[in-house]
């Protein structure tokens, strides 16, 4: 029988962790979330000799003190779940900082296997690393690798195998923290050993973390019912800060000192060489060219994704149209026919239609991330975003929102700080996505002949201004304080691989399907039901629940000068905003009306004035994002509360803005 073991991959961001994960597990992967948080959890499996190995890819972390949710997740897994081995991926070309995490992993009592990746880059920098010596000092296997070229995987698998086999005999490398502090650690260790609630943790690790004033560990000790240890640690901390230094600084210092000592023995440093990466940076973050280059890159991203996506989206549209026809001609029961064609097929179609965009945007985004450009984009735009209460990392998601808010909101995962991320998610739907354009074109063409372009542009501008205001307001109301400090690594530029970008794209796409897809599908079926009943299939839409709802809410919109049709169209726009156009087509009995339809425009001129039309466009821009966006907001915030808040505030804001436009229009003497 084969034995089953669990291992975890840990390492700093940008060290090639994903490449190693893919290399180890091949296609046997599963992507999900860590329970309770929106941090991605990737699981994979592989077999080596007589061992079935399950691999958990931990989020990229710089250290094991829980600064972000990602790090908390990684640390909890290591100290609570105690995997049989932890593969620590270290960027050889950046070994000094990378070893800091290694030291912490060893301190936590993990069975570490060091995968010393990017050996080629280190060599190119003229660095020479004595891996055997390093292994000896760390008392852990060290495997040199060049993962992108597939070098070192066999050795790594062997090393993991060996490490797991001899697993039980514990041997840990320990850093000495100086005589004074060591005495304190040893004494605390004794107390930790006596506390029954702390049995599963390594005593020395708990002691050190207590002295570092680690809130999470203090909580663990409190939960273990050993208050006296906390008091004792507190008094030792005071002692250390009196005699030596602030304890947190002291421990960080000592760890780096230790790393320096190791490197003194195992590393021959290279000379600083002028690299291609430095050259690229001269241009890409240039004082004058930096921003234009960035904007050009973004423009190219859009052009690429939307021009490539359009034929696929059309094909999906045609396919579901065809499928609907096939279904309707083969099902005789009208109620069932309507459910299948309009409800289910229509529902699945409206989920899948987003896929080409999501796939392509994530493909490009992953290329940008893997190449290192994403950090430069954040670097270049940070100041502007900081002014409105966000961070540079929010810029790309905001910009993607002009394409489609769904992938844009998924792209906020690169923002570590939860507050910054929530604000970015909540204001993102105000970026006018491409689905709103048909609504603008229809109305602008009917009421603002000659100045359509400017009117449509004003909608985009309105969205941006509102996003800025809302971001400032949200910061004031719910997320007090400044955006979190920027602590961002600028990794060297690297050639991204199509394979890893393709995998990334696939993961995001399938996650969207699984998570947001369900909500969208349900929403579409509900809307179908409301627009078909109580009359049943084939009955007039004016007798449906939706129409009743429209009539019922119409008084709210009466001050804005809108009839019940306008209200009902908005209800349909809930599914996807371009459906507003189709809904109007249905009302006026114009089948297959598109946004350029002149008969439809003529009909609208009877129902709106230019002022009420403009207010309606603004309302369509702002009110509830489409179902897909709501689905993805739920998925990414992990909270119904924030999802409902997003819907509610956008409803309120839409009404407010439309009312202001109407009032201002009348004041200025427009009809």
């Amino acid at each position, binding site marked *: 029988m084969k034995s089953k073991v669990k291992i975890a991959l840990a390492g700093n961001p940008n060290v090639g962790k994903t490449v190693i994960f893919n290399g180890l597990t091949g296609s046997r992967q599963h992507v999900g979330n860590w329970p309770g948080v929106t941090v991605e959890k990737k699981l994979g499996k592989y077999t080596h000799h007589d061992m079935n190995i399950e691999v958990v890819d931990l989020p990229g972390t*710089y*250290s094991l*003190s829980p*600064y972000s949710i990602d790090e908390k997740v990684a640390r909890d897994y290591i100290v609570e779940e105690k995997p049989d081995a932890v593969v620590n991926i270290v960027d050889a*070309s*950046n*070994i*000094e*900082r990378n070893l*800091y995490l290694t030291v912490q992993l060893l301190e936590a009592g993990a069975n570490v296997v060091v995968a010393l990746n990017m050996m080629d880059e280190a060599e190119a920098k003229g660095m020479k690393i004595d891996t055997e010596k390093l292994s000896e000092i760390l008392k852990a296997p060290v495997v040199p690798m060049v993962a992108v070229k597939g070098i070192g995987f066999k050795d790594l698998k062997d090393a993991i195998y060996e490490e797991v086999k001899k697993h039980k005999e514990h041997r840990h490398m320990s850093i000495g923290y100086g005589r004074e502090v060591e005495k304190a650690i040893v004494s605390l260790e004794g107390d930790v050993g006596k506390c029954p609630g702390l049995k599963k943790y390594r005593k020395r690790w708990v002691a050190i973390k207590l002295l570092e004033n680690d809130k999470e560990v203090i909580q663990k000790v409190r939960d273990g019912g050993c208050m006296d240890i906390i008091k004792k640690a507190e008094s030792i901390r005071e002692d250390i800060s009196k005699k030596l230094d602030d304890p*947190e*600084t002291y421990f*960080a*210092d000592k760890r*780096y000192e230790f790393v320096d000592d190791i490197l003194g023995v195992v590393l021959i440093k290279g000379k600083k060489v002028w690299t291609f990466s430095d050259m690229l*940076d001269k241009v890409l*973050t*240039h*004082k*004058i060219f*930096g*921003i234009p280059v960035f904007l050009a890159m973004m423009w190219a991203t859009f052009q690429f994704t939307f021009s490539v996506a359009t034929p696929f989206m059309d094909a999906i549209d045609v396919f579901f149209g065809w499928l609907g026809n096939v279904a309707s001609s083969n099902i005789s029961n009208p109620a069932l026919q309507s459910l299948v064609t309009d409800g289910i097929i229509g529902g699945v179609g409206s989920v899948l239609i987003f896929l080409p965009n999501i796939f392509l945007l994530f493909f490009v985004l992953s290329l940008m991330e893997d190449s290192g450009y994403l*950090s430069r984009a954040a*670097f*270049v*735009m*940070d*100041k*502007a975003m*900081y002014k409105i209460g966000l961070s*540079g990392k929010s810029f790309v998601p905001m910009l993607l929102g002009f394409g489609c808010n769904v992938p844009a909101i998924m792209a906020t995962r690169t923002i570590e700080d939860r507050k910054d991320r929530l604000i970015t998610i909540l204001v993102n739907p105000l970026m006018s996505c491409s689905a709103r354009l048909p609504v603008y074109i229809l109305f602008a063409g009917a009421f603002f002949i000659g100045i359509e372009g400017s009117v449509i542009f004003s909608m985009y501008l309105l969205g941006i201004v509102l996003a800025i205001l809302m971001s400032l307001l949200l910061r004031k109301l719910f997320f007090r304080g*400044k955006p*979190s*400090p*920027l*602590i*961002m*690594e*600028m*990794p*060297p530029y690297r050639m991204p691989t199509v394979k890893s970008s393709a995998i990334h794209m696939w993961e995001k796409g399938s996650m969207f399907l699984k998570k947001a897809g369900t909500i969208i599908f349900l929403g579409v079926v509900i809307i179908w039901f409301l627009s078909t009943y109580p009359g049943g299939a084939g009955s007039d839409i004016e007798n449906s629940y939706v129409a009743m709802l429209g009539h019922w809410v119409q008084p709210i919109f009466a001050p804005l000068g809108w009839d019940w049709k306008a209200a009902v169209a908005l209800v349909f726009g809930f599914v996807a905003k371009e459906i507003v156009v189709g809904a109007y087509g249905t009302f006026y009995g114009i089948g297959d009306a598109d946004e350029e339809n002149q008969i439809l425009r003529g009909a609208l001129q009877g129902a709106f004035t230019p002022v009420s039309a403009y207010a309606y466009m603004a309302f369509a821009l702002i009110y509830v994002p489409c179902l897909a966006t709501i689905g993805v907001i739920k998925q990414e915030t992990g909270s119904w509360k924030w999802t409902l808040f997003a819907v509610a505030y956008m409803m309120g804001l839409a009404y407010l803005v439309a009312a202001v436009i109407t009032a201002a229009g009348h004041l200025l003497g427009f009809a």
Partner: protein
Amino acid sequence: MTRLTDVKPGKKARIIHMGVKGPAGRRYMEMGVVRGETIKVVRVAPLGDPIEIEVKGYNLSLRKDEAGLIIVEVVK
């Protein structure tokens, strides 16, 4: 007293006081921004903030808000 924000791009400086406190301060320390460390200011972003520094052989960016709290001495 020289602050990190006063150091011109291309110049090196040694950290003599790390004034960023709290979780962010700890994070900077873990990223190698510790007292005694020699760092190099690489560039300032096009809009004047943030700045990019080289520390422990890699590049890190931080805002002037925090950089202004880091006291350094310029080294040749």
